[in-house]
């Protein structure tokens, strides 16, 4: 069935995956395809950015008609910063791994967030280095065991907590086995203006999928605790706003910059993602008690994005005509006089 811009879901595919059969990352690629199709994303405006790792390979496997940049390990954030600054009309989807973001890339990750570079930052978090065959990453849980490398005794870095503390205005965690939630959160993230972090626990079936491992399928399936049930109502959705609110009493509605809404049905935890303190608490609790919490953790009114704080012109810098790139000969002559 064609979407609003006349494309089939298949048009949003990429080349066939070369990941291990069953890898969590592949299901995320599929969710991205679905989301892009549902949202009728114009692929020519999308850029896909990634670092190095199994996760970072995935941009090849979705949205084949979009430009993509598979950069170097851990330093995709700076490439994304440059690309979105060069052309502020691009829709950037960044994909990274836990090693890529949490180990080698932590500094760039934090600084990207601080600058509020507008993009969806998907972390395909499996708590292990997949591509280099099963070393611990910085998000490996304390006490986690791996076949070859033994026991991890260091505390995990929680990339969502890092994002909240670092000034991200949209921070969510999900589970690649929960496709509905992944899709809803990705849609909301796409609608967000600013850095939107979506940390998706995505099991590595080859190196970190023991049943007791906190980031395995079995564990996720058994222990995932969603914070809410979600619905995403895109901007311009026909149903009048009031009706939606009426849906269920306990709902929280988060209105987004572009007019869309995320509707959250509160579950027993009572988490309100607009409450920064709750967001931090819930993350700290999850880490302390090793809870597999998922959902929209934190949402804040967007603050200025980088191209705004840079005060650059509205048209993409990349497309400026020569006349705007080179002042006149007269301008040079005048300038020269000031140095005489």
């Amino acid at each position, binding site marked *: 069935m064609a979407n609003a811009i006349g494309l089939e879901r298949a048009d949003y595919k990429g080349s066939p995956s070369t990941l291990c059969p069953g890898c969590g990352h592949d299901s995320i690629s599929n969710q991205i395809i679905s989301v892009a199709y549902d949202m009728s994303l114009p692929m020519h405006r999308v850029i896909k950015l990634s670092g190095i790792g199994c996760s970072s390979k995935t941009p090849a496997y979705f949205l084949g008609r979009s430009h993509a940049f598979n950069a170097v390990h851990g330093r995709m954030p700076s490439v994304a910063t440059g690309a979105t600054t060069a052309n502020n009309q691009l829709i950037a989807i960044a994909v990274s791994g836990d090693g890529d973001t949490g180990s080698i890339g932590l500094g760039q990750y934090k600084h990207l967030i601080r600058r509020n570079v507008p993009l969806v930052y998907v972390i395909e978090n499996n708590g292990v280095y997949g591509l280099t065959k099963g070393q611990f990453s910085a998000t490996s849980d304390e006490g986690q065991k791996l076949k070859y490398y033994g026991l991890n005794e260091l505390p995990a870095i929680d990339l969502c907590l890092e994002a909240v503390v670092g000034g991200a205005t949209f921070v969510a965690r999900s589970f690649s086995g929960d496709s509905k939630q992944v899709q809803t959160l990705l849609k909301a993230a796409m609608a967000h203006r600013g850095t939107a972090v979506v940390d998706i626990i995505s099991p590595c079936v080859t190196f970190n999928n023991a049943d007791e491992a906190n980031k395995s399928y079995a564990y996720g399936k058994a222990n995932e605790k969603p914070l809410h049930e979600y619905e995403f109502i895109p901007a311009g959705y026909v149903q009048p706003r009031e009706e939606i609110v009426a849906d269920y009493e306990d709902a929280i509605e988060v209105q987004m910059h572009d007019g869309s809404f995320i509707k959250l049905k509160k579950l027993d935890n009572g988490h309100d993602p607009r409450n920064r303190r709750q967001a931090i608490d819930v993350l700290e609790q999850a880490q302390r008690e090793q809870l597999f919490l998922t959902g929209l953790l934190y949402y804040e009114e967007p603050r200025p994005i980088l191209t705004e704080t840079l005060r650059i012109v509205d048209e993409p810098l990349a497309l400026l005509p020569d006349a705007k790139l080179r002042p006149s000969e007269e301008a040079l002559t005048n300038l020269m006089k000031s140095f*005489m």
Partner: protein
Amino acid sequence: MVLEMQPRSETANPSHVVNDFTLMVATKNGSGSQTSNEVLIRSLFRMGIPVSGKNLFPSNIKGLPTWYSIRASKDGYIGRKEYNEIAVTFNELTAAEDISKIPAGGVCIIPADWKWGQSRHDITYYELPVKETVTAAAVPQEFRDRIANMVYVGACAYLFGISMDVVRQALLDTFNQKEKPAMMNFGVVERAFNWAQANLPKRDPYVFEPMNETAGKILITGNEAAALGSLFGGVSVVAWYPITPSTSLVDGVLDYRHIRRDPDTGKETVAVVQAEDELAAIGMLIGAGWAGARAMTSTSGPGISLMAEFTGLAYFAEIPCVVWDVTRVGPSTGLPTRTGQGDLLFLYVLSHGDTRHVVLLPGSVGECFDMGWQSLDLAEQLQTPVFVMSDLDLGMNIWMSDPFAYPDKPIQRGKTLSKETLEGFIEQYGEWYRYKDYDQDGVGYRTIPGIDHPKAAYFTRGTGHNEKAIYSERSEDWVANLKRIHHKFETARAIVPQPVISNAGDQPARIGIISYGSNDPAIVEARELLAARGIQTDYLRVRALPLAASVYEFIRTHEQVLVIENNFDGQMAQIIRMESSENLSHLKSLSLGDSLPMTAQWIIDRIVQTEG
């Protein structure tokens, strides 16, 4: 052949020396002497005397010794000189050594307040009542320390013949025509001038006399010139991280980007992002260059080292961007406020695994401007990172120059396809493959993101790929791709700025000199002085890597070739050697690496040695 060369201090003896001597001011860093020195330089410039300034400053914000040399040269020489006839010794901690270095017949200007006595009998002393003069001028307390330096300005003006009118103008220039501070300073200058006139009988031979050699010229630093060149080259994304001596290049972009500002909205067409480090800075360039911006950064050695990995990506994924390396002295942190050319070879082969880069080598502020825009053109034409290696001497010192020429060709965006040209391309070729060598020059056609064409997209990566930009581990694809990129390097060889050759006569001289960058003034001076003594030399100034064929041609046609450069290893000589299988046993490396700008005297001494 044994040559009698001029002894070092010969010029320090005659009875009347006009516009051909150097005045050095020794003070403490952060004491405000920069302003005074600039006023002196600007005054000489206004008098039409060819002038140049060298700032020898410490890696420190306040308090460590700093020396500033102002050279007047009626013959137009603007390189560093090894000695200074006149020394203003205003730093008590270094004065003893500073005085000991004054050549016989020279002059020492020293605060009278110190009551140091006059230990040398072969130089002229002038003692200045610094404190008194400032006190008498009734300057507000907070400005007193800084303004004390104006005392030597006034005294020098009287002693060496700079009119008060000229100084006043120069002060206004220095203070951007702001009357108030200029006049406050001028008050002290005038007072010192008058005191000197009344109390200091002239006892030395040095005088400045008006000439007409600076009319229509400008005074500018290389970094400002580079900033202007970049702005006229259409730079649109600058990502950087502060580091001496490159910081003032980006400051220059900030200072002058208003000339590119959108007049209607007041918004910028140049984004300047202060990155968290150099790894991020070049990452941003690569993202920006890939997305179609004209991207530039400016850094120095340590930043270059940090950029190595990303540079390899840009090289291999074929992303345009420009990196200015305003070199200081390494290895490591080294001497951050001294000059040298020690990054050349490292830049050339930056990053692992068979990479090789285009490096432009400006030799003057004019070329800093030219290469400012040319580098951006070349980066897009060649789809590769382009380095420009300037140095602290060129970048941070003030130089005299002809006004810069407007770019002689329109902005070159290389083979960048728009929606329409992509359409046309596909019509013509029935296909478009990102990395296919359609024109046999090694350069493919690229698209940038955002183009509304279903076939515009391609996948950019640092891993092996075939000409369709598809991932490939096939040996044949790898080899074909690398061969093409190497072929591109041959294309580069022909379109980068070509060497400038200056021959002594119609027949090749026996000695050929090869050099590059900021050594130029010293070489120009050395050649003239050598010629005056009967040693003719030809001179080829390299302006870019990869080396032009004419470099080897030059080497072939000279009996002896000297490669003169300011680093320890003789890196240019090594590059010349490593890429040629010719017999180069007549090529000799003269390399310095003493952390200071090169002098003509050093070159002359070496050549005389060689000849001796």
